[in-house]
């Protein structure tokens, strides 16, 4: 209860801050347009105090960098899992199973599903893959310690169902043989999973015959083989699979297919669009990264605002006489406020852009983590998009306004005569 109140309070506070800042940003950006203190004045004064300006810029750049990096991490994780699902595919699990790991679909059910309406067919029959997943430890190349790899037993026609998966090297496995094809990230991450390698696990000896490219999806971290052989090696009953994926004649036929499965009294299966299943799989990790990253960035933002406030306050203090002179020349207090806001925005904008540029090289960088839904390792890449960068710059501008507004108001309220008389 206390925690809820605390967060409600935080959210309200944040909303107020954002509203005030946006008003400030608009005012500050308009400053050069309204008859005002010339913009060149701001540029010159920044140049005069370049050391403290650089510090303020770096503070804001660091904060924006962390903010964008964290968001791009969450974004990349989600994109990797979402890319694993195709809109034209449907995934069937035992009713109530939250994930494939807990699924169980019998061969009898698979045979009934094959004849349901809406499933695409080719010359060899319906496009349906009944799959088995196992988690097998393999040593990481980097540390030499074992990490869990998701091994997926699939039907030999899986490439016609997951059409975005392409063989990059070698060939697809032969049905009925102990052959493996490796996702391209798995081939790069684990020792002994190169094309042509012999691999022993689960009491069987396997040969790596191909490496596939699954377009940056979660399958790139997996190892695929014939599901019949995998069931045998893992000593599981050969008539039970963990999930079934079908390719539909068109994405629009999903409802018709689902209705047919749900209405069939012989079946007890949940039907989801593959893309929805994977989107749901990503929620826990994405929330974790976003919440953690958000908290870190928020705390850092407070620090950066303090830094900006310090810089701007000392600017106001050092320029007391200048400001008084401007007022004496006839500039209104509004003009002074707008001028200072503009200066703060300028500093924070440069900081924001620098922060974005600094993290840009992270784009596409692959890292990996445990996917807690499958207990296996999942490689994914930082994904920096234009809207993340824009958010980063907006974040910088908000910090700039918060850091510039109070010093600006103080500058405008300096009593002219007294400021001129000082020193």
């Amino acid at each position, binding site marked *: 209860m*206390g*925690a809820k109140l*605390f967060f409600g309070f935080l959210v309200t506070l944040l909303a107020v801050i954002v509203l005030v800042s946006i008003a400030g940003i608009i005012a500050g950006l308009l400053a050069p347009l309204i008859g005002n203190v010339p913009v060149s004045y701001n540029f010159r004064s920044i140049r005069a105090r370049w*050391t*403290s300006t650089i*510090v303020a810029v*770096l*503070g804001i750049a*660091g*904060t924006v*960098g*962390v903010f964008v990096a964290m968001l791009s*991490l969450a974004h990349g994780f989600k994109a990797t899992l979402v890319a694993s699902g195709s809109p034209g595919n449907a995934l069937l699990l*035992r*009713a*109530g*199973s*939250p994930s494939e*790991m*807990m*699924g169980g679909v019998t061969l009898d059910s698979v045979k009934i599903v094959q004849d349901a309406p809406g499933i695409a067919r080719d010359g060899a029959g319906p496009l349906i893959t009944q799959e088995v997943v*196992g*988690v*097998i*430890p393999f040593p990481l190349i980097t*540390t030499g*310690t*074992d*990490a*869990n790899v998701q091994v997926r037993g699939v039907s030999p026609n899986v490439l016609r169902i997951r059409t975005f998966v392409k063989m990059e090297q070698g060939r697809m496995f032969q049905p009925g043989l102990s052959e493996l094809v490796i996702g391209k990230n798995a081939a790069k991450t684990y020792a002994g999973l190169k094309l042509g390698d012999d691999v022993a*696990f*689960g*009491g069987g000896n396997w040969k790596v015959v191909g490496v596939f490219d699954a377009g940056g999806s979660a399958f790139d971290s997996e190892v695929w083989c014939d599901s019949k052989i995998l069931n045998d*090696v*893992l*000593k599981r*009953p050969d008539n039970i699979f963990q999930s079934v994926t079908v390719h539909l004649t068109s994405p629009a036929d999903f409802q018709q297919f689902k209705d047919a499965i749900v209405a069939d009294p012989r079946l007890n299966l949940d039907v989801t669009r593959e893309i929805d299943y994977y989107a749901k799989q990503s929620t*826990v990790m994405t929330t*974790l990264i976003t*919440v*953690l990253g958000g*908290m*870190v960035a928020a*705390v*850092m933002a*407070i*620090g*950066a605002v*303090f*830094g900006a*406030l*310090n810089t701007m*306050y*000392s600017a106001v*203090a050092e320029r007391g006489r200048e400001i008084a002179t401007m007022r004496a020349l006839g500039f209104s207090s509004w003009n002074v406020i707008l001028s200072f806001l503009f200066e703060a925005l300028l500093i924070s904008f440069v900081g924001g852009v620098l922060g974005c540029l600094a993290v840009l090289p992270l784009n596409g960088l692959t890292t*990996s*983590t*445990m996917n807690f839904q499958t*207990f296996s*390792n999942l490689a994914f890449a930082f994904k920096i998009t234009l809207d993340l960068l824009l958010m980063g710059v907006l974040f910088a501008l908000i910090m700039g306004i918060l850091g510039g507004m109070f010093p600006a108001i103080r500058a405008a309220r300096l009593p002219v005569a007294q400021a001129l008389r000082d020193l």
Partner: protein
Amino acid sequence: MKYSRLILANLFRKKIRLALTLGSFAVALFLFAFLGVVKDAFNRGMDVAGADRLVIINRTSIINPIPLSYRDKILRIPGVTYVTHNNWFGGVYQDEKNFFPQFVIDPENQRQVYPELIVPEDQWNAFLKDRQGAIAGAETAERFHWKIGDRIPIKTTLYGGGSWEFNLDGIYHGARAQDDETQFWFQWDYFEERVPDRDKGRTGWYVLRVKSVDDSVRVAKTIDDEFANSPFETRTQTESAFQASWAKQTGNISFLILAIGTVVFLTLLLVTGNTMAISVRERIGELGVLKAIGFSDLTVLFFVLGESLVIALGGAALGLGLAVFTVPVLSKALNGLLPRLILDRSVLVTGLVTAILVGLISGLLPGISAMRMRVVNALRRV
């Protein structure tokens, strides 16, 4: 400290600046403590691990079972004192979001293998007598407002599926702060009775204690050799190695946190260094006067360093103090998303030491320039 009044007077001359610098220090130290806490949470498993505990899993895959018949064979291996077997239940209480781990346990030896998880004697006896009995960790019990005697339904799709009902007979507490208080235990007999035939006689893993820690490598090897070439080969590891393999797989999270921490500290160093530089620059004239009336160069350096150290210590006390108060609140708010957050004393000490270092370094540069400054030049400047 005869100069302490002068240092304080200088500090309080610009109150806003003092507040802001203290504030940015406090924020940075708070963030430092928070990141340390999160990093600890990710690596928690390793410091919970008992040094004399070994974990036996199926060699092929952690999700493959091991036969229960191995228990007696394991017990016969010299050096093994207690063995318990646990199984992952993977059920859902009310909603998928309410995650907590449920284990089927062997009541006979569970407490001997995990002596740090403490159940009151009368509750444990009630649990032993109750076929549908269950014991919950204090944290989970508090999270769902369970009381002893409550009936708890847990749904599962494994093991024949359906809703399983349990009577809460006891609540365990961890002896140490870092012990996991989220688990939910129930009776092996009840489990064995309900599961379909193909799941009978199998367990997920064994945990055992060895007589002496030095012996654990030999015991682990003996166990794995014993079951080599059987249909269920085993992999025996120390509990900490087992936990570390999980923690390592969360990947670069620790690295990322360290990287962020570094960025934050560089930023902090810049901000404070800058503030100190500004305040020295503004007072060049005064420092010149001090030197002119006979204060030594070192005393002037001491004034500047003293100021930055006071700021550093004050900011650190504020930030770390704030962390001490908010970490329990955050831990509650993030329940279910992260393991429990605990603020370790070592994080506080590291934070304090770092703050002092940052204070010294950021005071040193302007301090040295103040020390070297020639009186004539200082007085000539406006």
